[in-house]
């Protein structure tokens, strides 16, 4: 009898308790505390991202263009790039910002060619301002995208040049005021592969960028590939002993330098990717504006490894991520158990 009473009352108490629990939302702080609230959660880290741009997809998305061959046997790669400047994009959960885009995203598509290929970019400006595409690399003056501004509302221009030199290069709009055009998002990555391909690897692109959402000439958000804290929330899955190659380009405006620090490992670094021999073996590189390079490494031990700006201000504003090495446990991707 007594036990029955206890049992029933336990059920009553428990159900009342769990009902109260349902109304509460929880979130996890940077130091791993679990907090409950009856209100809304303001959290760029752990809320399911609804942002339009998908850093997961961008990471390993390479565009080789429409391929044809000239009479002389040269490979021709045709790309169509459309510039727009009226998009409002959710660049961090809950934060909306007017991004200026190449093909609708920040960064624009990663353009990839082999050294010596003929690259043809059919550029259409559907924006409300003049825009251009300025490629870092070797090309004729008329293809530099500086003095040949392309007018708004459907202006067109075809950039045509031979891909080179080998390496990783940025492209960006070069219309004045330049800082405004770049910081709004008109940039992307241009990779030139050597004729003898590099060693097979799990390749990815990381553009280190930031957004000044309140226009005070200081960035409010930083990220690898646009969305703050994205790869911390959705760790990048890689395998032990597999060669990882990262094409990293720093496009952060306003701050003179950015950097990249890898945990639990060191990497071979090829500045600008122009030499086929690494210049240094390190876990930390410092990059100024448009400075870039290729990183190569492999992980010996499975587990979770951070990578982030060791300018910690940037990492605390979003430029931080995790490599999940060989972890078959899918639940650990939710991020809730980060810090455990």
């Amino acid at each position, binding site marked *: 009898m007594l036990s029955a009473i206890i049992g029933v009352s336990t059920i009553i108490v428990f159900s009342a308790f769990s009902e109260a629990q349902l109304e509460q939302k929880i979130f996890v702080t940077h130091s791993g505390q679990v907090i409950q609230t009856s209100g809304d*959660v303001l959290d*760029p880290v752990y809320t399911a991202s609804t942002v339009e741009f998908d850093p997961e997809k961008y990471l390993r998305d390479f565009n080789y263009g429409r391929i044809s061959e000239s009479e002389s046997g040269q490979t021709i790669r045709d790309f169509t790039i459309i510039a727009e400047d009226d998009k409002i994009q959710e660049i961090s959960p809950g934060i909306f910002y007017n991004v200026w885009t190449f093909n609708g995203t920040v960064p624009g598509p990663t353009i990839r060619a082999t050294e010596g290929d003929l690259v043809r970019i059919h550029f259409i400006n559907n924006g409300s301002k003049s825009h251009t595409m300025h490629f870092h690399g070797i090309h004729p003056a008329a293809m530099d995208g500086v003095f040949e501004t392309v007018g708004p509302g459907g202006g067109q221009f075809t950039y045509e040049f031979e891909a080179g030199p080998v390496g990783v290069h940025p492209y960006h709009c070069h219309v004045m005021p330049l800082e405004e055009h770049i910081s709004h998002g008109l940039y992307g990555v241009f990779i030139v592969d050597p004729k003898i391909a590099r060693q097979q690897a799990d390749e990815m692109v990381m553009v280190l960028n930031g957004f000044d959402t309140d226009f005070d000439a200081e960035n409010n958000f930083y990220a690898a590939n646009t969305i703050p804290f994205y790869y911390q929330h959705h760790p990048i899955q890689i395998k032990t002993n597999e060669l990882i190659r990262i094409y990293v380009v720093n496009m952060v405006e306003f701050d003179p330098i950015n950097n990249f620090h890898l945990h639990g490992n060191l990497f071979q670094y090829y500045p600008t990717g122009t030499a086929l021999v690494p210049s240094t073996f390190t876990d930390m590189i410092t990059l100024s504006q448009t400075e870039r390079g290729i990183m190569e490494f492999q992980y010996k031990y499975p587990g979770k490894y951070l990578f982030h700006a060791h300018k910690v201000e940037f990492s605390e504003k979003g430029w931080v991520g995790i490599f999940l090495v060989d972890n078959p446990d899918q639940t650990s991707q939710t991020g809730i158990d980060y810090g455990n």
Partner: protein
Amino acid sequence: MEIKNYSKVKTIVSGIIPFGFLVIMILYLVGPSSNLLEFGVSLPDISIEKVEFVNSEIHVTVRNTGPIPVKIAMADVNDRIQPAAIEPDKSLERFETALVRIPFSWNKSEPYTIGITLDDGVRFDKFIQAATPAIKSDYQLAGFFAIIGTYVGVIPVMIGLLWLPFIKRIGKNKYNFFLALTVGLLIFLGIDAMLEGFEVSKENLSANFNGGLLIITITLLSFLGLYYSAEKLTSRTGLTASSKPFAIGLMIAIGIGLHNLGEGLAIGAAIGLGQVALSTFLIVGFALHNTTEGIAIASPLAKTKSPVSKIILLGLIAGAPAILGTWIGGFFYSPYTAIVFLSIGAGAIFQVALVILKWIYQSEQKLVQASIVSGIGAGMLIMYLTSILV
């Protein structure tokens, strides 16, 4: 009779008609022609009204003080993004408030800047000079506040009243000097209360609420209201010449009481908001400053025979509100109540100053004489010098 009623209706209708047109105009502006008036950009605006440091959390009270509804999207501490909660929810209508809870293991007495970012990416921030643990409303703290209020309000006023026998013994000219001194003290206190109000308004109130105008309006209303009711009171009850000084003493006590309530609010709020560490020195300063308030009450009473109990009562009326003020300020601080109390106090004090001046004028038939002018000057100077200590 009917004709009279008819004209009455006419009067009422003619009074209402303009209002009718006003309503029609507003409805038209808001409705059909609202597009016509939309030029310029409505910028969102929020005010961070209160920052409290509680057990491993920072609590931030934000209010939408802009012309349009806003959505709060992010919180940061020292410009570093922190996960946080917002209760009841992140959408704020005009003038609505919400509590942002930022889990953060803050360090005592370190400065912090709290930032709140809206959905359009605009960030608002507030600087806190030193993190101080938020106070919990318990009896111990209420007792602590009562002690502070007693030191700052009750005791100094009582000490000031001890000058009463001295003022009683002096000659007419010197007595007038002391009455004028009181006027000087009061004018200073009134201005002081208003300036204090302006400061509160500037630091904690959004410009939308027109804090400055609010202070001036309430001060004037309090002045006029008290002046009117005091006149009515003294004329209706037909107070005798001997009871009039006591009435004036009472008015001064009430005015100063309101002022001390405001002062208590400021002290309580300062402790509550962790803006200052209340040092013994600061208490001593307030105490010295407020001793002069006792003199202000004593002067008009000097030439009458008032029982000691009544004088003590006046002292309590003037001093005890400081205790109440520290409670309100410490436990339920809001910039609005602070401003309202300070302004009512200022109005009351100006009213009393005017009554004393009128009183001196009635007995002397002129105000421009050495004892009075020097009295007012000396009163203001004493207040200024003692205020430096605060």
